[in-house]
């Protein structure tokens, strides 16, 4: 039993560290650290940079231009990216639809879509949830009726993250309503967001941000060439997508960086106040979270080690999403508690690079509450944590 990396893995870690230390990351890192929200271009630039290095397809096999990395290498990459305050990879293209296309798509589709995903030339968004289908995704109502060489799609998709930037959407739609099980008769298809009949309506979330959208489909024509795999099998493909990245969803590396930051900040005096480190209650909360996070990190490592040795992930893997998001949210709470009154000013306009007015609050203090509000989503998305518990009860505990 050991947690040491091999020489090759250590060399790889050095390579990744060196990559992220490059000056070209300074600007985006500074933005991250000073709370300036990243724009579409920041993400695209970052992902293009990764692609130049051959590292955009973190989870992809080499035959499709991916890294072909081992589970341990992926873990090292995620950890170093977090430490370097690199942006998160926007998942929809690279981590979601890409793997579905190279796993279930035909050759023509692979050639047509995969290069643009790797190069981040096309921004993808996800059309899964509907106003009436959240956790109960199989109850989706969006219908796709076959008419010759295309489908006519009608319905509404919702919670579409960053859909306002999207060039393409992948969606689940019902192609057959006469089925024994609701999971049957659902198909996985791709649509150009410029197709007539598609409209995007912003949803403003409780932090005042425009991050998610409602997407309406009104008699939208989607060519049968854009159907992935077999008609009616979309549920299976969609599930693969949700299971993908199971080990990375915990976000342990990002949480670790944020928690270490709180410890450092707690030791400093802000506005001449007594440092929070003097407050034993607060420090106990940090310590308790550090323990939970260390446990999560090792639960994730156990999963990786199982995968690396060719075994299926054990029951430990199923708790990653639940525990990971709970910890993220607890860290958000600590940041907000640390800011006290200065969690309250609602002054998002000041978080721009060239802001010339009075900066309210120290650093990104006033964003702590907004992050707290925004990340209530973490225990809801990707299958709410309660749904995760249902899945674990059924598939792990056999209940």
């Amino acid at each position, binding site marked *: 039993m050991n947690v040491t990396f091999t020489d090759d893995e250590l060399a790889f870690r050095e390579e990744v560290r060196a990559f992220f230390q490059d000056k070209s990351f300074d600007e985006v890192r500074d933005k991250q650290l000073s709370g300036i929200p990243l724009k579409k271009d920041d993400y695209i630039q970052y992902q293009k940079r990764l692609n130049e290095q051959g590292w955009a397809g973190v989870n992809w096999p080499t035959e499709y231009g991916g890294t072909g990395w081992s589970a341990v290498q992926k873990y090292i990459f995620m950890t170093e990216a977090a430490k370097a305050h690199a942006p998160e990879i926007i998942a929809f293209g690279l981590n979601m639809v890409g793997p579905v296309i190279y796993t279930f798509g035909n050759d023509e589709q692979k050639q047509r879509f995969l290069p643009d995903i790797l190069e981040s030339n096309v921004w993808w968004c996800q059309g899964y949830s509907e106003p009436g289908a959240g956790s109960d995704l199989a109850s989706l109502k969006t219908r796709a009726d076959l008419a010759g060489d295309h489908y006519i799609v009608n319905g509404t998709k919702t919670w579409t993250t960053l859909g306002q930037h999207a060039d393409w959407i992948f969606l689940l739609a019902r192609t057959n309503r006469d089925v024994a099980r609701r999971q049957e008769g659902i198909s996985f298809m791709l649509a150009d967001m410029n197709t007539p009949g598609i409209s995007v309506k912003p949803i403003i979330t409780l932090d005042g941000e425009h991050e998610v959208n409602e997407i309406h489909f009104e008699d939208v024509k989607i060519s049968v060439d854009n159907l992935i795999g077999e008609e009616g099998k979309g549920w299976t493909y969609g599930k693969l997508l949700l299971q993908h990245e199971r080990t990375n969803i915990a976000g342990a590396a990002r949480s670790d960086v944020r928690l270490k930051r709180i410890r450092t900040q707690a030791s400093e005096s802000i506005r001449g106040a007594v440092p929070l480190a003097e407050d034993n209650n607060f420090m106990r909360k940090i310590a308790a979270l550090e323990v939970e996070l260390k446990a999560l990190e090792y639960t994730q490592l*156990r999963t990786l080690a199982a995968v690396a040795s060719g075994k299926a992930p054990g029951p430990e893997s199923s708790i990653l999403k639940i525990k990971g998001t709970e910890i993220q949210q607890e860290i958000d709470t600590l940041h907000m508690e640390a800011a006290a009154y200065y969690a309250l000013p609602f002054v998002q306009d000041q978080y721009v690079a060239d802001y010339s007015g009075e900066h309210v609050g120290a650093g990104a203090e006033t964003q702590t509450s907004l992050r707290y509000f925004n990340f209530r989503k973490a225990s809801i998305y990707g299958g709410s944590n309660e749904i995760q518990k249902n899945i674990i009860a059924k598939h792990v505990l056999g209940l």
Partner: protein
Amino acid sequence: MDFSLNEIQTMLADSIEKFIENDYDFESRQKYSDSDAGYSTDVWQTFAELGWTAVPFSEEDGGFDGGPVDVMVVMERFGRGLVVEPYLANIMLTGGILKRVATPEQKERWLQPMIAGELQTALAFLEPQARYDLANVATSASADGDAWILNGSKGYVLNGRNAALIVVPARTSGEQTDQDGITLFAVDASADGVSITDYATIDGQQAAEVHFKDVQVDAAAVLGDIGSGFAAFDAAVDDATLAVCSEAVGIMHILRDKTVEYSKNRMQFGVPIGSFQALQHRMVDMLTDCEQSQSLLMWAAMLNAEDSPDAKRAISSIKYQVGISGRKVGEEAVQIHGGMGVTWELDIAHYFKRLTAIGQIFGNADWHLDKLAA
């Protein structure tokens, strides 16, 4: 990166599991616990014959050359079997002191017979006023020519009922809570001036209050250097802490398994109670607590095995986690077993009580969280 057990550890695990399954069912355990000694001398002899009492000692000392990971393997399985034999008192506590500071002559006199299963021992690690502070030692030892005279009291001396040898940390200099000035003495339990009041503990084990009144100890019974016994004392208790955490994780896994199984068979309202979502989610939480604890345990055992400077912090982390999670898993197991969960008859309650006891010793969750917060 590898979390699997090596060949020797796998064999050790298998042999203990087989023993528990074939020779140590719950009824036997209860019988041993209720016996005069509070454990089975035959079983203890078997442990010695199979080499399990030799695990954490060097080959030179007649041991198996095992480390914290091997001890983890043993103790997790002892947890599953709810073993009452005094492994913690002898092997981890007294053994942990003797292997660190005893001279070859002292090892021959005490350590080897202990490993062979022929000598019962105890470490008097607690003073009644000390709560969890090991350095809080008021028991005094004053020089009297070549000998020493001990006066004071120790509480919760595990295996105090059976111990022929009691290792006693006593103050030879300094203030009551100084780490410096503590000396370790090997005291014959039958010596004049030693009085022992033994009792059963809530978890089916036994301990004693031990009083020393002008007890004379000769120089050959001093373990290690005068006044600097704390380091070995502290290290032995750290190893023992990790050992009981391993035991607790073993218990948590079995409580979860038994609870899930019970919920599949227990019918109410015409259906198995395991079909109720309110209970399903609670059992998923039990699983989460088990796996998170397991992960931390492995981390702490590995750090301790490589003598990492972070090992102490890791041990505090797992002891805190086991304090919180052990209580939760134990309480939930009882709750989901319903009325049966609160009976003496079912093993569930006894696993729960052992978990509770583990939560109370070597620093509770609060104590360790304070260390981590600092």
